[in-house]
């Protein structure tokens, strides 16, 4: 214990004997730690946003479809509305909200233009709890009931069609016999979305109205179920799948939108890779500094050895020096990172490059997300790898022959 105290004191003093070198090293570690944490938070924020948007836009955490619906999302592949056991499961504690939808490709036309869209027949009250539309209606109103005869469409689509709130548009699709089914709708609400593709691609109408238009009775295209946490849908999925039975296809969101799902998985791996890469660059600096510190002090180390300090203590002292360096650097780096992220919590507007981001499905405002586990991981990796990096110069110092070391010029 006493010996350790002495080594610690020696190490601390040695650090500040050449304070310029130490400060440069600390600066390198600070920048490294800061960039690791800050960049990770940015990436996490981006992915979280993408997943949250993706889920809120339509999937729901778990979905039930006709087995063929995902390959051929037409009105031919419909299922009966939930009943019996499934309905009971949907009332379970795991389920935060659920809704049924009729979702088919359609064509919308105004006096001046015609566009392809996805027509979604919804139960407005249930849908409110799941997807984004209800809260994002900026003009007019959201639908009020499944037999609401209005249509809610996106701002961009309104512009493309040169139409407006309160005007009529015609929606055309095909019914189950492949006959044309069309109908006039009055636009009662206009929504805005962070993602242009949703504004242009989706129109919402009452479920009953759409069912009548397409002649499918009370059948639906999908049941969407929202759980409490999108990262952990396994239990919810199991219980719903068991209740839904064999006739239908029940899938968690990460399999429905495999792009989003794999994105999330890749991200978790990528964060580690990123931290390691940053550290690798950093470790060369660290090793170099320590090697220099050892070379500079060959005679001094020789003297200490001659005075009776054990090689182990020498090794301990140099490793302690580097760990002290790392700790100081990390503390400052962490504080700096948190201090930069905190004021940016409200989002960083990157709309200059926003269009490219939107193509990827991310929005043009970045919200950095700081996770404790990312901070802990970054710090642990730096400390542990730093420790091993400093072992080599320390090892070499402890192996000096005292006489040669003292007489070295």
């Amino acid at each position: 214990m006493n010996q350790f105290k002495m080594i610690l004191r020696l190490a601390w003093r040695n650090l500040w004997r050449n304070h310029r070198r130490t400060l440069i090293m600390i600066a390198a570690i600070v920048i490294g730690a800061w960039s690791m944490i800050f960049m990770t938070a940015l990436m996490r924020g981006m992915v979280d946003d993408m997943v949250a948007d993706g889920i809120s836009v339509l999937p729901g955490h778990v979905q039930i479809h006709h087995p063929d619906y995902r390959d051929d999302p037409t009105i031919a592949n419909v299922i009966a509305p939930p009943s019996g056991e499934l309905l009971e499961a949907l009332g379970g504690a795991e389920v935060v909200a659920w809704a049924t939808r009729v979702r088919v490709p359609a064509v919308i036309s105004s006096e001046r233009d015609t566009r392809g869209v996805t027509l979604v027949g919804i139960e407005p009250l249930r849908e409110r709890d799941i997807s984004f539309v209800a809260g994002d209606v900026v003009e007019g109103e959201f639908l009020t009931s499944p037999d609401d005869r209005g249509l809610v469409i996106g701002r961009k689509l309104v512009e493309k069609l040169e139409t407006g709130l309160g005007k009529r548009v015609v929606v055309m699709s095909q019914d189950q016999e492949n006959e044309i089914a069309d109908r006039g709708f009055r636009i009662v609400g206009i929504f805005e979305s962070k993602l242009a593709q949703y504004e242009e691609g989706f129109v919402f109408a009452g479920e009953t109205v759409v069912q009548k238009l397409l002649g499918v009775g009370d059948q639906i295209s999908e049941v969407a179920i929202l759980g409490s946490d999108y990262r952990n849908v396994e239990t919810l999925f199991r219980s719903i799948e068991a209740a839904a039975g064999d006739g239908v296809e029940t899938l968690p969101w990460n399999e429905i939108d495999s792009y989003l799902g794999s994105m999330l998985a890749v991200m978790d791996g990528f964060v580690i890779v990123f931290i390691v890469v940053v550290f690798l660059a950093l470790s060369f600096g660290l090793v170099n500094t320590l090697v220099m510190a050892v070379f500079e002090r060959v005679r001094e180390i020789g003297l200490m050895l001659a005075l009776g300090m054990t090689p182990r203590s020498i090794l301990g002292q140099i490793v302690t020096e580097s760990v002290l360096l790392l700790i100081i650097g990390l503390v400052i780096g962490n504080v700096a990172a948190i201090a930069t992220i905190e004021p940016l919590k409200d989002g960083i507007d990157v709309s200059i490059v926003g269009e490219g981001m939107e193509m990827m499905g991310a929005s043009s405002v970045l919200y950095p997300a700081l996770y404790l586990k990312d901070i802990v991981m970054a710090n642990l990796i730096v400390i542990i790898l730093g420790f091993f990096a400093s072992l080599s110069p320390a090892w070499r110092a402890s192996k000096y022959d005292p006489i040669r070391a003292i007489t070295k010029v």
Partner: protein
Amino acid sequence: MIRKTLCTAMMIGFLAAALPTQAQDAREIVQGAIDNWRGLSSYGEMTMTIHRPSWERSMSMRGWTSGSKKSLIRVTAPKKDAGNGTLMVDNNMWSYAPKVNRVIKVPSSMMGQSWMGSDFSNKDVSRADDIVDQYDHTLLATDEIDGHTVWTIQSIPHEEAAVVWGKEVLEVRDDYVLLEQEFWDQDGVLVKTLKTLEIGKMGGRNIAIRQRMSKVETDDEWTELSVQSMEFDIEISDNTFTRSNLQNPRD
């Protein structure tokens, strides 16, 4: 209860007295105009000219209709387009191009698009008589022009009709020749007009033999349809309106 019944009865009486005669008239006029143009069945030869600022092209074609639900149009010239055909039965539409030797059903997504590159949309061509049932017609004016009575009728689509227009205004002469059809958007802006430029006697009745569809917003762009010959109420076999006939003409 009695009061309510009475009230209802009075309202019905009032409506019956005020509106319907006129509305009925207007509707009958529109129906008359369509019947005049088509007859129970018809066969005609016509030319369609598509004009754009930088180019113009003409197509000759032959058309058969039977009742309100069946029609077939086949292009005969120029050689490049000859054989192209469009078949409409009920609300379905098929098109055939000899180059690909395939009959393709025109999907709902393409109904709003232009028919053979003209200013007519597929919908204009296939659903011409939806206007009778899916609109409310009112007689706006009755004028005397060149010794003919001309009715001006405003047709407003029903709330849920699959029609994008805010209203259409039709001018129909007393011999049921459609003189003009205007398509207005929902802001009351005129979008396109179908105008009759020439009237002639063919197949025993007066019909519009030259009609021009032009968009208001784009100058110098129009499609003209002129009729060379027309026969009405003739015998046309139901086999004419089949996909196999569309693909392999039998006459």
